[in-house]
């Protein structure tokens, strides 16, 4: 990218709702399958969209520990909610995928992944961070996942800055939001209210810039930009939840035998919801499937969870047979061992595990309890 791009990249463009619609149409016109948030069964999930009108226009998601409800906002906002039970992981790292086919004659066909042009609309800062985490896990180790690699190849990302953080959001303390900082082709800040409704758009790549130009986006005025900036400043101040990451890895390493784990294990149902909604959980298992006549065998990979009893099974029994040990594995992996494995935490602060836990276990509270318990033990 040249110097001219650098200046154009920091340039702010203006999109009205019609311009936003044209953005989606242009992506489709370029052969992208466009995925975005839609309302289904009382929740906002990610699916294919053909038009901006399919987005959850005017919807808000009320969230709490073990609580999620949609309600009307009373406006026409396209992105007036935060994150639902789905993450973009399901498109990049499919929940169930065939790894290989083996014939009885010995022919082996590997699934080396298929490249597909996907565009994601409405990716939040925490979700961009989650994709970066998955990149580290699946693309930067000694072996890479060919399926993820292929799907990632021609991904187009339209990010959305969060102007109204949700009740369970703690991305600000994780350094991943509310603003999308990197990893997008186009970022949007939605301004809605007081008789106006528009987006301030920025390009994060050459492709993003040329798309904005192709749909004829004009430069945003100073006033349009400053209203968007005000929104983001308010956003920064409105977080209700935080995770104190100061010395957190060392804290958790020191407190593997913390009494807090026994207490949380009393509540944890080991239902695996937290791992299924997590945008960074990458654990999988395999299923062997044989055709009825026994001539062809397939290996399928599907998402697994460290909360499952047989996750750690070796002959004779499971290593982690208690829920205590399985919750501990999950928490210490997210917030401590992940850092040693991949250089960042496995938690991006999206809050999904808190919302979708049927008993409302809150990762930020449990981490804080471990911190307090250490101080109390030391005081005794």
């Amino acid at each position, binding site marked *: 990218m040249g110097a001219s791009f650098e200046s154009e990249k920091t340039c702010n463009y203006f999109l009205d709702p019609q311009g936003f619609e044209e953005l989606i149409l242009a992506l489709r016109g370029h052969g992208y399958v466009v995925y975005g948030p839609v309302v289904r069964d009382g929740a906002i999930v990610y699916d294919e969209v053909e038009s901006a009108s399919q987005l959850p226009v005017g919807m808000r998601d009320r969230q709490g520990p073990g609580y999620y409800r949609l309600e009307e906002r009373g406006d026409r906002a396209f992105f007036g909610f935060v994150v639902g039970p789905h993450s973009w992981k399901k498109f990049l790292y499919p929940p169930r995928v065939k*790894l*290989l086919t*083996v014939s*009885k004659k*010995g022919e*082996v066909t*590997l*699934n*080396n*992944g298929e490249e597909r042009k996907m565009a994601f609309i409405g990716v939040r800062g925490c979700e961009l961070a989650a994709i970066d985490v998955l990149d580290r*896990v*699946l693309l930067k*180790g*000694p*072996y*890479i*996942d*060919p399926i993820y*690699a292929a799907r990632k190849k021609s991904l187009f990302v339209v990010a959305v800055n969060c102007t109204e953080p949700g009740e369970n959001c703690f991305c600000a303390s994780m350094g991943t939001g509310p603003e999308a900082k990197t990893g997008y082709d186009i970022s949007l800040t939605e301004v809605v209210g007081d008789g106006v409704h528009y987006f301030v758009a920025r390009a994060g790549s050459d492709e993003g810039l040329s798309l904005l130009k192709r749909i004829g986006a004009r430069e945003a005025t100073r006033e349009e930009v400053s209203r968007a900036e005000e929104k983001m400043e308010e956003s920064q101040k409105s977080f209700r939840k935080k995770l104190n990451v100061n010395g957190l890895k060392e804290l958790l*390493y020191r407190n*593997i*035998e913390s009494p807090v784990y026994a207490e949380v294990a009393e509540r944890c149902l080991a239902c695996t919801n937290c791992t299924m909604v997590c945008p960074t959980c*990458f*654990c*999988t*298992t*395999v299923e*062997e499937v*044989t055709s009825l006549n*026994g001539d062809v*065998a397939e*290996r399928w*990979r599907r998402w*697994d969870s*460290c909360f499952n009893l047989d*996750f*750690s*099974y*070796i*002959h*004779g029994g499971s*290593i*982690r*047979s*208690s829920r*205590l*040990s399985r919750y*501990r*594995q999950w928490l210490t*992996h997210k917030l*401590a*061992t992940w850092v*040693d*494995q991949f250089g960042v935490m496995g938690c991006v602060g999206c809050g999904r595990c808190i919302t979708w836990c049927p008993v409302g276990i809150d990762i930020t509270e449990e981490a804080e309890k471990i911190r307090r318990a250490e101080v109390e033990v030391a005081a005794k």
Partner: protein
Amino acid sequence: MLAEQKLKVVEAPDTFKMEWFRVVGKTRETADTYTLKLKPRRGDGLAYQPGQFVMLYSFGVGEVPISISGNSLNGKTIEQTIRAVGPVTKALVSADIGSMVGVRGPFGRGWPLKEAEGQDVVIVAGGIGLAPLRPAIQYILRNREKYSNFYILYGARTPGDLLYKRSLPAWRGRLDAQVLVTVDRGDEKWRGYIGVVTTLFRHVKLEPSNTYAYVCGPEIMMKFTVQELKNQGLPDDRIFISMERNMKCGVGLCGHCQFGPTFVCKDGPVFSFAEVSNFFGRREV
């Protein structure tokens, strides 16, 4: 043959690549344990480092991680010692001579044989834990001049549980290796030592300043063995253990084999005790 080079970085299409190996030999070791001799259908044999493992596949049944337990002198065949404990291992031990099994790998980090050159080596094995150590024993005995004193301490539950009944007498016959074998419970024919493997330390005098220890067996056995080695003065970074965990992929992607901050498949299975002392021996980690 011993691969001298570092594990090569494998590009995307190779991550799940599998090769067929023909079963060219089969030895019954114990009531439930067999050693298969495998020869690649194509190519010259498998380059590996002693202590590494492969994912072995039985058609339609599935894959399991199995340590490589030896190779022929010419490097054309490898051996895999398999205990029948689940559906896949049961299918593998019932593979007929001439049939094919799938092999992915070799994977992981093996025993530090280069670093131990010029030093004493003590190998401590419990039960089927001898299998991942056998390639290291073969390598040291075939390159005996590279090492100083060499000890093998091996314990099994009963005489019937001892592996490699043909190799053991050959090892014990070597004048340049001290090989001690013990069983927890003897039978009427047993004339050797009785007791857990750590009782054999009575009979050897290690020189802690220049000894490498390679240990493999059940975790409880490794725990007491490491303790004994530490009592003898061996530093943590010269005691090596081989860990076992559930594995689905073998290449660090499925998450199952995590042991503290490590992935047993890619960071291990062989670890120096210094690397894992914070986690080793803790319940349910």
